[in-house]
């Protein structure tokens, strides 16, 4: 009899835009598909870094990560970015409770921490350039700047996105039922954070 089943349960969370076949909001499904694609993008960048790590180390004029890159400052940056994931979670939790004040504060804090990370990365890049590690100085420079640079670009896009959600929250107003914009930027932000955990571990922590 399953062929005759006509029942089509409405979406559990009752989206304002009507039910969907899977019961998940379409925009959320879309961002998941997009992040799947992004995973492959960063996967290729990270694999390239790992392939060239021993190649670079074997050269006579090798520039080695643990000599060129200080870990303390970057560890601080990593902590800042991790903290921004926490504030993002708190911001989403606040709007789900319709707490407009704390929603705004946590969202602004997320964007602020993201900006701090970017500022720190700019400082780190300039510092390394003066130390002699450049895009064309060695394979380490090539792979390091392209990988961290693309991650930084993603953080910058994320900050712009966060700020636009912040701005739109003043004009549109998000509430308990309508906060998909916040969820979407949150998913993207957590992804960018997760990528940094992988990048940081592979570049700075692995011997």
């Amino acid at each position, binding site marked *: 009899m399953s062929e005759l089943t006509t029942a089509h349960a409405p979406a559990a969370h009752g989206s304002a*835009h*009507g039910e*969907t076949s899977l019961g998940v909001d379409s925009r959320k499904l*879309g961002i998941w*598909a997009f992040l799947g694609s992004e995973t492959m993008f960063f996967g*290729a960048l990270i694999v*390239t870094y790992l392939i060239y790590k021993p190649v670079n180390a074997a050269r006579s004029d090798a520039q080695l990560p643990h000599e060129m890159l200080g870990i303390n400052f970057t560890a601080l940056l990593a902590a800042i970015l991790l903290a921004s994931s926490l504030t993002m979670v708190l911001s989403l939790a606040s709007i789900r409770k319709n707490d407009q004040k704390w929603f705004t504060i946590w969202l602004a804090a997320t964007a602020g921490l993201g900006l701090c990370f970017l500022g720190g990365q700019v400082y780190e890049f300039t510092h390394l350039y003066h130390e002699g590690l450049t895009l064309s100085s060695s394979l380490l420079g090539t792979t390091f700047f*392209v990988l961290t640079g693309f991650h930084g670009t993603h953080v910058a896009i994320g900050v712009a996105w966060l700020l636009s959600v912040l701005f739109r929250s003043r004009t549109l107003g998000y509430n308990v039922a309508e906060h998909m914009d916040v969820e979407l930027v949150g998913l993207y932000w957590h992804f960018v954070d997760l990528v940094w955990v992988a990048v940081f571990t592979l570049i700075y922590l692995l011997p």
Partner: protein
Amino acid sequence: MATVERPLQRPVGIPQASAAPSGWLSWFSTVDHKKIGIMYMLSAFVFFIIGGIEALLMRIQLGTPNNTFLSPDVYNQLMTMHGTTMVFLAVMPLNVGLGNYIVPLMIGARDMAFPRMNALSIWLFILGGLMLYSSFILGGAPNAGWFAYAPLTEKGPTLSATHGMDYWILGLTLTGVASIAGAVNFIVTILNMRAPGMKINRMPLFAWAQLVTQFIVIFAFPSLTVAQVFLLFDRNFGTRFFLANEGGDPMLWLHLFWFFGHPEVYILILPVFGIVSEVLPVFSRKPIFGYAFIAYSTVAIGFLGFLVWAHHMFGTGLGPMVDAFFSGASMLIAIPTGVKIFNWIATIYRGSIQMKAAMYYALGFIAMFVIGGISGITLASPPVDLQQTDSYYVVAHFHYVLFGGAIFGIFAGTFYWFPKFTGRYLNETLGKVQFWILLIGFNLTFGPMHELGTQGMPRRIYTYEAGMGWDFWNMVQTVASFGIAIAVALFMWNMIVSLRSGQRATNDPWDGATLEWATASPPPAYNFASTPTVHSRRPLWDSKYPDLDVAHSPTTKPVKRRELAPLDLEELNRPVEPGSIHLPSPTFAPLYVAIALCVVFYGILYLSTAAIPSVIAIVVGLGFFAFGVTVWLRAADRDNASAH
């Protein structure tokens, strides 16, 4: 039973006739999947013609030994642009165009999930293609093959000195962004916007094929993008990813490129498998044989496609273990593909076959694709491959798959769905004449390449000495290639004539089975007056013939069709009060965003040679991008507000 009215799943707006751009301008602001599908198909067809002219020029050059019709450099540019055009600007967007038009209709949706993003995809595709072709005027086209092997593509006096390869990188990146945006759109549409009752195992096989294809797109394209970024940096910003004398490795290019490039082959052919799976049962008056096998073998091909990229690299000396793995994985793909072929043949078997033009092309597809598939199997064997790779045997193989396969299948789909697009039939007689000219021209052009390749004629050469035993067949091929051109010209003539005065088609001209035939030809902007409710795999057929038995698999008990609630065709096509159905309103925002990205990409392209104007272009482009996004968000918010 009345069909269930279902709220539209998308942010929507009431079309305002006064504010909406009309006439030719409406094509620039449209967010209707059907118009976008037509734009995809027409622009891809134009690129197909251009790529074909490039092929003809190459064939003239190769027709006689020691020919001086083209210079080596021009030949290289034409060869590169022919391959790039056919893969990225012709076959892929033709499939996307058919999918864009048909898939939402097939699954009973009003539009794609993200109509504005759909418009962004078409504009990025068109602008990316134009950017690629602007290289001919602005200093020389790319000239190192569509595979762009590093270090041949590195910048250097003896290598690739012009900006041509930069155009290849950035133009294709634009179309790549379009592909990924389109893929996300298709995936969400197919997974999330099916009509009530259209469970995933009741979806038409064309929708299945598109779904798997788009999953391949989102996982394969990033690898190409990364490779292109590396090459761009190598050429312009002093990195050394692929420069062996500075520690880089050209093999990295091969791996990244073919990790994309092999799945790309399935991006090109899987939707065509879907087309054929729709056409054959309708003209055989039988249900498709082994629906589940065809669907699951599509998934299997999608998965295996990612495990076989290194079979393009046997000649590079990967070592016997690696060769063995990739050889085995490549041959495995023949299993799900063979499953499909046998299912198609079983579908025709004992059918009451109607030999319409679409059926000619579908059958031609099977025959040609089998030839290409078998030469593919021989190439998957490393010892054979080491002999044949980079010879004309490989050229024969992939033309049998991509022209004999993909293009024949796309012709089948075009003849099949043309009445739905336009309300008129394509001329059947012209179509059949075209088929025979195309079939003969095609086989005489590419068939002898098997022989030439075995005789040792290398690919990618622009001329050859007389007396190598290659003269005769090369001349035959060149003459025959004009047969293909005549066939394509005949098709264009057919389209023009049929659009003007073709025989009028009814809503359901072929006595079809799937939902797109349940609405008007051409369909109204809102597709269906009310959302259809689906009870079987062939909702329209089962509604038309309620007294026939239906069994979807040997394990389920047959039920009478009349026990299935039929589609209410009158209700689906009832006259609709204007304003009662909400549709996304037209907007120029996607066009703005696409133009902005294009400006930014031109800036990046000239960053290393003309820094100041480039930076200005990038800044202006980013500013215009922000403007485009703002207009976009306003349009979205307006639609949201009017939907509530």
